[in-house]
């Protein structure tokens, strides 16, 4: 089974949103075992994303691409096939390093492993 979360989060100038997945349906991973893909883009240059899953750092803060639209596969894939286990918290942080507010577009695909 494949599930997905997708969203657009506005990030104020020079601030960090600690977890854009807060309150989302699959903020905590639903399956016993799954592999996931992270796709993200920004509305303009200057956004960084960081992924932590279950307290483990998957990526440090990294610069993301700029397309000003929802992310598309495969062009906007930041990281594929990271694994997770049931109940682990998905923490996707977004940091705006500029003096202007920006939009952060993100998608997380969750693929159950049988």
């Amino acid at each position: 089974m494949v599930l997905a979360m997708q969203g657009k989060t506005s990030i104020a100038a020079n601030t960090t949103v600690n977890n854009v997945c807060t309150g989302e349906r699959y903020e905590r991973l639903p399956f016993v075992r799954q592999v996931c893909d992270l796709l993200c883009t920004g509305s303009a240059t200057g956004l960084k994303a960081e992924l932590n899953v279950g307290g483990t750092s998957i990526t440090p803060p990294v610069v993301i691409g700029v397309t000003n639209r929802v992310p598309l596969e495969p062009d906007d894939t930041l990281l594929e096939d990271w694994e997770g286990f049931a109940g682990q918290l998905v923490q996707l942080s977004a940091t705006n390093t500029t003096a202007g507010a920006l939009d952060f577009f993100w998608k997380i695909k969750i693929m159950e492993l049988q």
Partner: protein
Amino acid sequence: MPLVERFRCSRTGVTFPSDYIEQWGIKYGHGLGPVPVSEALVNHYHSPVCEGRNDACTMHPVGFAGGQLDFIRIDESEALKTDAILAKDDPDMVKRSAIMRDKQFLKSNKLQSMFPEEHAKVLAKVKVN
């Protein structure tokens, strides 16, 4: 006045230098993909106002226009009025975000009600210009 060569953004009307396409990915358009498009900024009024650490940073988000570029020849005096602030000259978006925020005051009821004094100053500036 002599005519100068520019590329004009079809979406916002601002102009870019004549080497914009040739230097795409080198001097201009970092992170914007392989196809040369306008790196001018547009306001995202559909996204809510983001409250920044100070009032000057509180604004609607912005995004890059991505519009088609048209090659033009215009008077140098006209070019001085329409030339865009380039991303390479304003990497932290300090100058550009201030301009975009002023524009947001003209259309965003939310910003107008949050900062009525600033709104009045922006309106006065527009009338003078």
